[in-house]
C-alpha cells in the first residue's frame, strides 16, 4: 500500500488532469476523425475542451466502455454500429436522450426507440471492383451476388473473415439477407468452390490482394460503397473517373449505422447533450464524409463534390434487425467458418 502511494506520487505529475471542470471526453475507435475547425467551434461556443480517447477498433473500444462502466473513462461514446448495438444496449451503459435535432436525421437509421443510441453516420458494405481489369479482360463486372459463383468469376473475389472483421461480418449478413437463412451456406459452398480468397481484415484484403489498390491479382473485394470516392480523393492526381466501382444493386449491400450515446455516470450531462446535438447538426454532419468516408445521417446534409460524383448510397440494402443479429451472429459465423474454411 505504501509502495502504491510512493509510486503514485512519482507518476502523478505525469498524469494528465483527468477530470478538469470544463472538459468533455469522447471515447471512440481508431477510424474516427473530425476537422479541427468543427471541434473548435463547439469548444468556443460552450467554453469547453473536447478530449478524444481512441481505444482500438470498434469492438475493442466498446468492450472497454462496458468494462469501465462503474468508473467511466468518458462522457460520450461514439462508434457503436448496428452489429454491436445489442451488446451495448444489453450492458446498459447509455443514458437515453431524445435530442431535438433527431428530426433532422433520416428515420430509417433510428433503431433504438428509447434513444440511448442516436445515429450519426452510415456506410454501405458491398463489393468493389477494379474497372480497368474488367475492361482489359473484356468481362462484364459483377452486378449481383449470384454472379460471383459463375465460372467466369473464378478466383476473382476477396472477402474478409466475418469472425475477425466488421466489413466481413456485414457481407456475411448481406448474404444471409439475400439468400435467406436456408440458402446462404449454399452460396458460400459455391463461393469456396469458385476459389474465394478470405483474409482476416479489410487492410489485408484491400492493400494486399485487390488489383486496383496494390500488387494484388484479384479485381473484386468487399469494401464500402463510398470507397471509390476515397480512391479519387486520395489519388495522386484526381482522375475524372474513379478507378473502382461499387456494386449496389438490389439487396447486395449491408448498411452499417454508427451511433453516439451518452455514458451513464457522466457528471456533465448537459454538456454531453449539447455535444450530441452538435454531432447531429449540420456543421458536424457536413464534415463527416471527407473525414471518415461514410455518409452523414442528416436528411438534407450537403455532400462534398467528390461524394456526389463518385460515392453511392444503396437504394435497397439488406436489413436485419439488430437483436436478430445479436442472437444469431455466433451461429452464422460458426456455420460460415465450417463451410468456407474447414
Amino acid at each position, binding site marked *: 500500500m505504501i*509502495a*502504491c502511494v510512493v*509510486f*503514485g506520487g512519482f*507518476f*502523478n505529475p*505525469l*498524469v*494528465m488532469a483527468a477530470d478538469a471542470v470544463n472538459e468533455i471526453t469522447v471515447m471512440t475507435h*481508431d*477510424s474516427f*476523425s*473530425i*476537422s*479541427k*475547425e468543427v*471541434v473548435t467551434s463547439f469548444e468556443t461556443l460552450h467554453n469547453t475542451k473536447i478530449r*478524444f*480517447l*481512441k*481505444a*482500438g*477498433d470498434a*469492438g*475493442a473500444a466498446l*468492450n*472497454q466502455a462496458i*468494462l*469501465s462502466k462503474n*468508473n467511466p*473513462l468518458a462522457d460520450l461514446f461514439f462508434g457503436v454500429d448496428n452489429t454491436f448495438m445489442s451488446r451495448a444496449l444489453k450492458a446498459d451503459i447509455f443514458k437515453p436522450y431524445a435530442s431535438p435535432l433527431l428530426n433532422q436525421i433520416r428515420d430509417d437509421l433510428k433503431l433504438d426507440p428509447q434513444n440511448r443510441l442516436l445515429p450519426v453516420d452510415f456506410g454501405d458494405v458491398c463489393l468493389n471492383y477494379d474497372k480497368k481489369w474488367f475492361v482489359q479482360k473484356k468481362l462484364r463486372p459483377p452486378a449481383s451476388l449470384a454472379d460471383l459463383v459463375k465460372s467466369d468469376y473464378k478466383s476473382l473475389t476477396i472477402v474478409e473473415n466475418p*469472425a*475477425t472483421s466488421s466489413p466481413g461480418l456485414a457481407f456475411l449478413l448481406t448474404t444471409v439477407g439475400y439468400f435467406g437463412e436456408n440458402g446462404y451456406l449454399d452460396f458460400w459452398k459455391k463461393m469456396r468452390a469458385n476459389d474465394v*480468397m*478470405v*483474409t*482476416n*481484415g479489410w*487492410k*489485408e484484403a*484491400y*492493400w*494486399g490482394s485487390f*488489383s486496383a*489498390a496494390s*500488387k*494484388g*491479382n484479384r479485381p473484386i473485394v468487399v*469494401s464500402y460503397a463510398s470507397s471509390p470516392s*476515397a*480512391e479519387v*480523393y*486520395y*489519388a*495522386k492526381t484526381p482522375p475524372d473517373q474513379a478507378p*473502382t466501382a461499387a456494386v449496389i444493386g438490389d439487396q447486395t449491400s449491408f448498411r452499417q449505422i454508427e451511433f453516439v450515446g451518452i455514458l451513464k455516470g457522466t457528471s456533465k450531462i448537459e454538456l454531453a447533450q449539447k455535444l450530441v446535438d452538435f454531432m447531429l447538426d449540420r456543421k458536424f454532419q457536413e464534415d463527416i464524409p*471527407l*473525414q471518415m468516408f461514410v455518409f452523414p445521417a442528416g436528411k438534407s446534409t450537403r455532400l462534398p463534390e467528390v461524394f456526389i460524383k463518385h460515392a453511392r448510397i444503396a437504394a435497397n440494402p439488406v436489413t436485419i434487425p439488430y437483436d436478430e443479429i445479436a442472437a444469431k451472429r*455466433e451461429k452464422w459465423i460458426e456455420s460460415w467458418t465450417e463451410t468456407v*474454411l474447414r
Partner: protein
Amino acid sequence: MKKNNKYRPRILLITIPLLFLAIFYFYPLIKIFSLSFMPEGEWRPGKLHKLVSSGFYIQTFWFTFWQASLSTILTLLLALPGAYVFARYRFFGKNLIQSFTTIPFVLPTVVVATAFQALLGPNGLINIWLMQWFELPDAPIQLNHTLWFILLAHVFYNYTVVLRIVGGFWSRLECTLTEAAQVLGASPWQTFFKITLPLLYPAIFAAGLLVFIFCFSSFGIILILGGPRFSTIEVEIYRQAVHIFNLPMAAALSLIQIVFTFLLMWVYTALQRKTGVDIMPESSASALRNVTTCRDRVIVGGNTALMMLLLGMPMLALVFRSFSSDSGLSLVFYRALFENPTQSIFFVPPMEAVIYSVGFAGVTLVLAVFLGLPAASFLASPQKGLGALLDPIFMLPLSTSAVTLGFGFIIALDRPPLNLRTSLMLVPLAHTLVAFPFVVRSILPALRSIPRNLREAATLLGASPLKVWQAVDLPIVGRAVLVGAVFAFTVSLGEFGATVFVARPQTPTMPLAIYRFLGQPGAMNYGQAMAMSSILMMVTAVGFLLLEKVRIGGMGEF
C-alpha cells in the same frame, strides 16, 4: 564470508522490479481475470466447456506450439552462422549491417506483409522475373496464406534476436580453449561441436527462448500472412475478447498461455543451471580477425548475402515503393506527410510522430534497463526456493496477450494514486513490460559467465558489494546491457498491440500513424504509409548507430 551481509542488498535489488511487475502486470491481470471468471463475485464459467469439448482449441494450441518450435529452430539455424561472423570478424560496414538487421523488429506486420507482397506476391518482383525468364503462364511462388509465409516472417523478425544475443556472447568467448583443441589435432568441426557449441549453450538457449515465446504469442503475422485458416492462442484470445466478448474464454486462454510459458521457463531455468559455464572474459578486440583468406571471404560474404536477401530485400522493396510513382521516382508521398488536406484534428506531422515514438522509446529504454539490470543481477547467482521462481515470472509479460492486459489496465488503474488510464506514461509503462524480459535475457548469460572467484577475490580485498558490481560485473556485462538497451528501444518503437489501447490519439507513435493511413482507400494513403514506414526504418537505424556510439564513448572497452 558473512552470508547476511551479502543477502540484504540482493533483496533490495529485486524489490523495485518486483514492485513494478506487481503494480503494472499482476494487479491488472488479477483484476481482469476475477472480473472475467466471477463477474458478480461468483464463479461463472460461461462457455468454458468448449475448451475441451470442441477439438478446435486443442488443435489451436498444438499448432501454436509446433509453428513456434519450427520457427525457432529455423531462426537459430539461419542466424547462428551470422552470429559467428559478427563475433569473429572485423570487416567494413559491420556496425551498419548489424543495426540494419534489427530494423525488421520495429516494422508493423501489415507493412511487412506489403513488403513481402511487393517482392514475393503473385504480381511481385520475383514472380514477374521468374515468369519472364522461364516463360511461365502463372506465378510460380504462391506464398500467401501458407505456413511457409508464417515461418519466413518469423525468421525475418527474429533473426536479429539470435544474432545479437549469441553474437554478443560469442565475441567474448576466449580463443585459448579452441586453439588448444586445434593444437591437439581436433578438426574445426570437432572443435565447434565439442568446445564452442557447449560454451555457447547459455546464449543459444536464451535467444531461442525469446524467439520461441515471441512466435508462440504471434498475432499479426498469423492473422495477416497466415490468413484465416491458421490460428494461434493469441489470435483466439483477441477474437474472444473483442469480437465475441466472451471474457471467461479469453481469460482462460490467456491463463493457459501464461501457465505454459511459466512451465517452459521453469524447465529452461533448471536446464540453465546445468549448462552455465564460467569463462574468462576477453577483450573482444583481440578475438576479432580481418577477412583475409578465401575461406573468410566465403563465410563473411555468404552470411551478409543471406542477410541482404532475407532481411534487406523486403525492406528495400518498401523504400522503393515509398519513392515510386507513375512517373518514376518522386517525393510526392513524403511531401504529403506534411499536409493535412481534410484539416483533421488527429493529423500529426511526421516530425511529431518521430518525436513521440523516440520519446516513448527513450523512456522505455531507461525504465527497462533500470529494472532489468538489478533483476538480472539478482538472478545471476544460483537461486533456490522462491528465488528460482522469479526467473520464470519475469518472462511472463512477454507472452501475455496485449488485449487481456489492456482491458486489465482499464479496470485496475482507474483510481488515484494509480489513475493512469489516460496518462501519457501508460505507453512507456506498457512497452517496458514487454522490453524488460528482453533486457533480463540479454544480460543474464553474460552475468552468469563471470567466474565467481573474480567476485570473491574483490570481496576479500575489501570491496563492498556495490564496488564489486562496479569493478567486476559492469565492465563484463556492459556489452550485454547495451544489447538489452537496444532491444528495449526497438521493442518500444515497433510495439503495436498494446499501444493501440493505451496511446492517446493526439500523440500517436509511428506504427499507429502508419495504420491510420492504411485505414482508408486511395493511392496517397498507401504511399504515405510506405513513406512513414521508411522514416520509421531510418529513425530506428540512426537510433541504433547512436546507441553503439554510447558504448564506445561512455563505458570504454570491455
